[in-house]
């Protein structure tokens, strides 16, 4: 299987509580390409680009409301594609979104897994990598709450510029 990377060069984070709509260009959401598709996230990297201290309480979480009619990524500022140039094109690739007709909402369920990536966007970087398929953060389908994951700032985050990528594998 081919690994894919969903990357955004720069976006300004915002403090958003669970179960509240994320705002445009403050998040990265990865949504399954079909009702039966599985996507396994194996790496999340966030690099700080802020010019003053900006604590980030970034969370990779499942969404209880998925992004609807996602806006196509803007060339030059974001990308979502295979890491291997020889990869065969999928009929329904996973969708990377930074905004859409309906904005996603991070689930507040205590039983749904999430990853906390707290760091300071003024010179800090953070990265989570899974070394084994058993360790991947798994998505199934394209509906709530297991069909989409978003990377966004939790309550308390100071707005700051960051760049990030999510490496995943479509099964």
């Amino acid at each position: 299987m081919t690994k894919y990377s969903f990357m955004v060069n720069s976006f300004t984070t915002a403090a958003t509580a669970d179960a509240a709509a994320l705002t445009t260009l403050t998040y990265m959401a990865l949504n399954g390409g079909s009702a039966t598709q599985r996507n396994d996230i194996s790496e999340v990297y966030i690099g700080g680009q802020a010019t003053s201290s900006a604590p980030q309480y970034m969370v990779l979480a499942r969404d209880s409301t998925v992004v609807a009619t996602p806006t196509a990524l803007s060339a030059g500022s974001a990308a979502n594609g295979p890491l291997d140039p020889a990869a065969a094109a999928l009929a329904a690739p996973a969708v990377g979104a930074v905004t859409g007709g309906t904005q996603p909402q991070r689930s507040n369920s205590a039983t749904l897994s999430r990853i906390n990536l707290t760091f300071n966007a003024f010179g800090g970087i953070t990265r989570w990598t899974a070394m084994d398929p058993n360790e991947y953060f798994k998505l199934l389908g394209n509906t709530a709450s297991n069909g989409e994951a978003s990377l966004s700032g939790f309550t308390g985050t100071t707005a700051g510029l960051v760049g990030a990528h999510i490496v995943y594998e479509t099964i």
Partner: protein
Amino acid sequence: MRLRPSEGHLLVDHRASPGITAEDLMRAGLDPSMAVPEGKILEAQTKTCAHCNDVVIMNPNRVRPRGHCRKCNKFICDKPECNQECTPVDKSLDHFQEQAFRKEAGYNLLPLLHSVSPLLKGQ
């Protein structure tokens, strides 16, 4: 840092950053023990619960035994629902994916799973 293949890796690098202090984390209602202050770097092992898919940051100072499912022979987290019976998340995902395929194709549906992963309960 040497990692075993069944582990994940978390890196928080504040060597060139004011970092995150325990006070910052307490103000946000988060665990202050995860502070990585100015000039410091955190490298930690992570493990993913085989039953609920939670990613757990390993505390190297922990002395209590860690969870382990003897049935699926994998790491499990401390949540009570993950320690009751063997509910592998991979098995549940395979089941729900197959069920979705069958629904789309109009085939007979699979019987309900006896035990579902906490991640997929209610689906």
